[in-house]
């Protein structure tokens, strides 16, 4: 095969090949071309997304490390920092759901402790097709099992997540895994190969042929052929993962390492070229020193294998012994595979011969940046023009609410999270099931709140507003628990960016997210882009997922959605402008995904979040719940169910009750207040000039909603509970 054909087979364009020869000053050999091919894949090079991502605000007085490293780092006071990142493992999970999800969790875990942080929590965001097919149930069950299997075993609690079901994810489920860690701020280590003469050390699992060209696979649409091209499936080894984590953190804590880099996509090639290029150094490796699991591996296979549970350490020669001792306590044997050199070249030897010699910066960062063509898709205006208010009125609103509560998108996900150990490490103050999870920080007495959110249906109907709403909702969830949002990480799941309609969705969503981040004052400190989520040319809904982290200075003030006491007053905070466009009501009751989204007023959003946090911090709030899917009625039902107490609510006069009950819009919070505090709260709301109304009281064991003099909905807690809690057991068992 001529090089011409080879580069195409490897997924590089002629233009890219030409760039490579220019940057190298010669033609690459086969091994080198393989290295370029994995690093210049979309997954590693971000060539179609880099220019749009520049829109994100990435700094704040708290940000210690923004995007560009393995994870973002944010100051949380008292000399401590939070470290977090989200990442997709969509395509591997479509092939082998259990292992795909498990290795996704393992990968994001490594990104966190690579920085020197002790991981303290996992979150995840999942999308599947429907559960009526055996394949759908298999994927769902497998992914949940894989996430739990890995997280439970490494002993990091899985504390929050979200799951949605839409036909568009049928063949291409989404599995986004997030990890949050904490560390003393001065313990930060970066993925840099600095210090000429320092040793390059590989530790962890043996290197096999698994996942070779995994990144290329992730950078293509799924098709029949991709079955054929598929690399050997990677299997996670959480046991090894845990040993590696503990030992690596110990070497970092003891200041035995100069640089640390995990092995993710593109394996050794990525680790070597990235660490060298970040430090402006070179590396010489001897591939014969890489401990192998399989015989007769070709040098390019060693260089691109994506075997899991491996770490690269940069170690000063006189510290090697101490490093070996730390790993030795867990029966792990670090292998010295090379050393840091001056110059900026990564050179690999194999059986005594140089098999590759590449400019590090070119491989790691020389890929072209594309500005793809963008075109508004035809569906956009068409769907936006649809008016959901023409739908016939339901006869029985109670029936509608029960149906929504039983919709898999909304129903209790306990079936999922009871398979996750969400308590290990005994720091979980709030586990799954609330608006955000809360993890205490023993060392500082404070706590971190965290949430992960994204609504593909919304982003499909309006990527710009959908993007804003994802950021708004994730941060609002934190605010509802009383925490200050301090940063977000995002995972952008889209179709093929080379299609102008998809790129339009992408750039619109990024613009919306960036705008929301600016107004709400939260920096983006890291994230991940997953393109080519398509099966046979059909893309998923554009699905940006936002993972937000907040700081709760006084964990005792933590607020949850559960209503507390008979007689408490119920307030609805925020603008009343809502829409049925893209709502759960329209989807589950009318069977439609259509309409336009409610206006997003980011200033109002910010004011609502500021106010609810202030009220919580002033000890004036008994419960708080963010309104999202299913609107007011569903938020009320959820608050009643988690508090095991009823409520009586009076709707504001409305011409179209489905809108009042089930309409969705941003910036709204349902909260309850003790009667003796009600006046004070009303006063503070007025002073803050935030829209709000008192809508009812906490009472009894039913949810009763009236409109004027008519009771339009009355449901016993037990009836709502049955609808809400039994769905998954029924479908899955």
């Amino acid at each position, binding site marked *: 095969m001529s090089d011409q054909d080879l580069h195409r087979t490897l997924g590089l364009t002629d233009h890219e090949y030409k760039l490579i020869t220019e940057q190298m000053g010669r033609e690459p050999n086969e091994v080198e071309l393989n290295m370029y091919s994995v690093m210049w894949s979309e997954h590693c090079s971000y060539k179609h997304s880099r220019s749009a991502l520049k829109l994100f605000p990435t700094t704040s007085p708290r940000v210690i490390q923004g995007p560009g490293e393995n994870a973002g780092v944010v100051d949380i006071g008292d000399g401590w920092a939070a470290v977090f990142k989200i990442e997709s493992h969509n395509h591997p999970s479509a092939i082998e759901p259990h292992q795909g999800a498990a290795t996704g969790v393992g990968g994001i875990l490594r990104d966190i402790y690579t920085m020197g942080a002790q991981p303290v929590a996992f979150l995840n965001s999942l999308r599947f097709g429907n559960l009526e097919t055996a394949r759908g149930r298999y994927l769902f069950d497998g992914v949940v099992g894989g996430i739990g299997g890995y997280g439970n075993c490494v002993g990091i609690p899985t504390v929050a997540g979200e799951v949605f079901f839409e036909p568009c994810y049928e063949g291409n489920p989404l599995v986004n895994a997030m990890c949050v860690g904490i560390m003393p701020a001065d313990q930060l280590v970066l993925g840099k190969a600095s210090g000429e003469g320092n040793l390059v050390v590989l530790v962890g699992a043996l290197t096999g042929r698994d996942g070779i060209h995994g990144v290329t696979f992730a950078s293509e649409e799924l098709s029949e052929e991709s079955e054929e091209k598929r690399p050997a499936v990677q299997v996670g080894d959480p046991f*090894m993962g845990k040993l590696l984590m503990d030992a690596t953190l110990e070497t970092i804590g003891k200041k035995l390492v100069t640089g640390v880099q995990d092995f993710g996509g593109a394996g050794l090639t990525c680790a070597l070229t990235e660490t060298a290029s970040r430090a402006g150094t070179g590396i010489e490796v001897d591939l014969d020193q890489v401990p192998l699991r399989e015989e007769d591996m070709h040098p390019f296979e060693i260089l691109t294998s994506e075997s899991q549970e491996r770490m690269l350490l940069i170690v000063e020669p006189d510290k090697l012994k101490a490093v070996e001792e730390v790993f030795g306590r867990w029966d792990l044997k670090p292998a010295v595979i090379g050393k840091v050199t001056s110059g900026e070249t990564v050179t690999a030897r194999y059986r005594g011969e140089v098999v590759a010699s590449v400019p590090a910066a070119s491989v790691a960062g020389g890929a072209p940046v594309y500005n793809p063509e963008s075109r508004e898709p035809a569906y956009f205006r068409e769907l936006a023009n649809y008016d959901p208010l023409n739908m016939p009125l339901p006869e029985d609103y109670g029936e509608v609410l029960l149906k929504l509560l039983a919709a898999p998108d909304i129903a209790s996900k306990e079936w999922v999270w*009871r*398979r996750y150990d969400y*308590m290990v490490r*005994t720091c979980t103050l709030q586990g799954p099931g609330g608006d955000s999870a809360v993890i205490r920080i023993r060392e500082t007495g404070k706590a971190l709140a965290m949430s992960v959110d994204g609504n593909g249906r919304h982003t499909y109907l309006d990527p710009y507003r959908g993007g804003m709403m994802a950021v708004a909702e994730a941060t609002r969830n934190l605010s509802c628990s009383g925490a200050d949002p301090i940063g977000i990480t995002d995972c952008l799941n889209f179709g093929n960016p080379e299609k102008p309609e998809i790129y339009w969705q992408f750039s619109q969503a990024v613009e919306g997210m960036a705008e929301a981040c600016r107004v709400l004052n939260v920096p983006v400190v890291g994230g991940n882009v997953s393109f080519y989520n398509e099966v046979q040319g059909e893309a998923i809904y554009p699905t940006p997922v936002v993972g937000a982290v907040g700081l709760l200075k006084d964990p005792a003030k933590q607020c949850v959605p559960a209503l507390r006491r008979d007689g408490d007053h119920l307030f609805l905070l925020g603008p009343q402008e809502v829409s049925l466009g893209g709502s759960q009501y329209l989807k589950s009751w009318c069977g439609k995904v259509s309409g336009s989204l409610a206006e997003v007023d980011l200033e109002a959003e910010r004011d609502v979040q500021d106010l609810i946090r202030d009220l919580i911090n002033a000890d004036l709030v008994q419960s708080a719940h963010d309104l999202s899917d299913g609107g007011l009625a569903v938020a009320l039902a959820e608050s009643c169910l988690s508090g095991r107490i009823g409520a009586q609510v009076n709707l504001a006069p409305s011409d179209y009750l489905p809108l009042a009950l089930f309409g969705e819009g941003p910036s709204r919070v349902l909260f309850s207040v003790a009667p003796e505090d009600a006046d004070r709260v009303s006063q503070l709301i007025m002073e803050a000039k935030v829209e709000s109304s008192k809508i009812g009281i906490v009472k009894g064991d039913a949810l009763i909603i009236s409109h004027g003099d008519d009771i339009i909905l009355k449901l016993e807690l037990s009836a709502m509970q049955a609808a809400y809690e039994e769905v998954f057991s029924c479908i899955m068992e």
Partner: protein
Amino acid sequence: MKFGVIVFPGSNCDLDSYHLVRDVLNKEVEYIHYSEKSVGRRDVIILPGGFTYGDYLRSGAIARFSPVMNAVAEFADKGGLVLGICNGFQVLTEAGLLPGALCRNHHLQFRCEQVFVRVDNNSLPFTLSASLGKVLEMPVAHGDGSYYAPPELLEEMKANDQIVFRYTDQNGDVTPQANPNGSLENIAGVCNRAGNVVGLMPHPERAGEKVLGSRHGLIIFKSIISYLTGREVVRNV
């Protein structure tokens, strides 16, 4: 009074036991590495929860051959107190220090949830602060917790009062619904014949602070402490 928490490769609740003993109970506690050949001068040894050796092959099967386990067996032989929690329980059964075996949960899933267990033997150093029949709320988090013992063994255990905890409902009634994993006769925890080695699947160390949902787990630790305090008093007289 000194607690020791054994750290096997893959233990992950070692931290939780350690934290509870040190920060909540204010007692001295140290980790013991699995490669140690002695457990040193300690009064209580805790085998914590987790996934020793990834739970590969069978939960606890590989860990029980760790060097430290010989020392634990000797320590137990001499009457030292040994508490196995979750995976620690599995290790102790595999090692033969406790009777029976822990099999896959009957529903085949890992399950993390709050359960109730009843104290069915309160004459042990681990339970003497509880009244007989006391119902404790504690979490479970395991995939292999279904207790099994062959019929003859079970009879023998009953005759020796070796069944320490049973899963019950809130009122202390043994019901099938209260059984989270299919354990034989709702057995949640057992002891050896001498009563100085106890294992249980629920996590008392996760139920030691109000902010975590329950403080019922403290009864077990407080029993141990008052038992040892009593012994120290006798020794010092």
